[in-house]
């Protein structure tokens, strides 16, 4: 590939190759404080390329590929190159990660213990993780929580936080000094702007944490919390995991450990300020 960028996020090394310089320059800037892959060897490779040579120049369209690929994925315009790179990295993790049980969840840490928040896209898990990081919590990640198959601890994967639509201004106002990527309009998920995790998140990204609380947030309702019974937690987590089936019995063991050992609550919240209050009240009651 013409241009290349290597980075390590938590325990996972990536190499991103691109036909265009633009996305690579953005990645270099936003991930400037991150280390290289261990021993210089990436776990996963992402390629951003022009499916036809003239698409490098004429209405440039980025096709995402890598070690693992979803056929028929629609190409993205060059202005959304950063998004393409992030999507490509997520795709490699979702399709090929076998060292950890992958939960589609955001995670923050306090006092060595992790709070996991899982839910559909739009449930507010990224926004909540960003807001909690402004209140002294260590951000561990907004997309994937990596559950250790041996001891059940959660490893951080603090990639750029993907903020969407209304969440962008909420986080911009709360974290005025933070670093952000370009605002991208008209993506498949509306407006997207990436937030760079703070120095605390990057410096401590090698430190795992024992999961202590599991939350299922939903946005847009009256403030309410309710405990979630173990069987419902089990079902929701199998749905939230991209590699549960592939891991076989080790995945089952890791999931059972969480279900049996981590209290779980669903929280409905009308606005993000309420959500932060509800989350911290549940945490303080542990």
């Amino acid at each position, binding site marked *: 590939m013409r241009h290349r960028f290597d980075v390590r996020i938590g325990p996972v090394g990536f190499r991103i190759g691109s036909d265009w310089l633009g996305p690579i320059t953005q990645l270099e800037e936003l991930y400037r404080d991150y280390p290289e892959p261990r021993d210089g060897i990436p776990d996963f490779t992402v390629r951003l390329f022009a499916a036809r040579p003239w698409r490098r120049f004429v209405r440039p369209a980025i096709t995402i590929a890598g070690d693992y690929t979803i056929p028929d994925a629609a190409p993205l315009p060059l202005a959304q190159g950063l998004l393409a790179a992030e999507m490509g990295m997520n795709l490699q993790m979702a399709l090929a990660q076998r060292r950890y049980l992958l939960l589609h969840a955001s995670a923050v840490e306090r006092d060595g213990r992790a709070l996991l928040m899982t839910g559909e896209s739009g449930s507010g898990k990224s926004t909540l993780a960003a807001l909690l990081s402004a209140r002294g919590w260590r951000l561990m990640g907004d997309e994937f929580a990596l559950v250790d198959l041996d001891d059940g601890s959660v490893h951080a994967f603090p990639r750029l936080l993907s903020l969407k639509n209304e969440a962008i201004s909420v986080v911009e106002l709360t974290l005025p000094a933070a670093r952000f990527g370009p605002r991208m309009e008209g993506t498949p998920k509306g407006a997207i702007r990436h937030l760079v995790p703070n120095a605390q998140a990057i410096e401590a990204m090698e430190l795992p944490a024992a999961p202590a609380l599991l939350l299922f947030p939903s946005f847009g309702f009256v403030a309410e919390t309710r405990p979630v*019974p*173990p*069987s419902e937690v*089990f*079902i929701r987590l*199998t749905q939230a995991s991209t590699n549960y*089936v592939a891991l*076989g*019995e080790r995945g*089952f063991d890791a999931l*059972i450990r969480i*279900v*049996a050992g981590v209290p779980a609550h669903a929280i409905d919240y009308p606005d993000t300020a309420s959500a932060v209050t509800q989350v911290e009240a549940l945490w303080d009651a542990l």
Partner: protein
Amino acid sequence: MYRAAAPATLRIVPLDDLTAIYHRASGITHLVASPVPELLAALSEPLTLVRLAKRLGEEFYLSDGEALAARLDELVASGLAEQL
């Protein structure tokens, strides 16, 4: 005669009203409700439909042999039990 799959092939973990079962032979996770865990426990030794109905029927309203046979057919289809 029916018999549960060999104990070494099953991981059975009660959660609450539901029980998670990991079936090693197929790699499939089952989430089951009563009376499935009780049926599997009773079938640790091979039993005929009649004897099983006698043992579990009254407690689980399965004295109607047809309902019990239907549950057993499901277990056999899933591999959690076998018909001898």
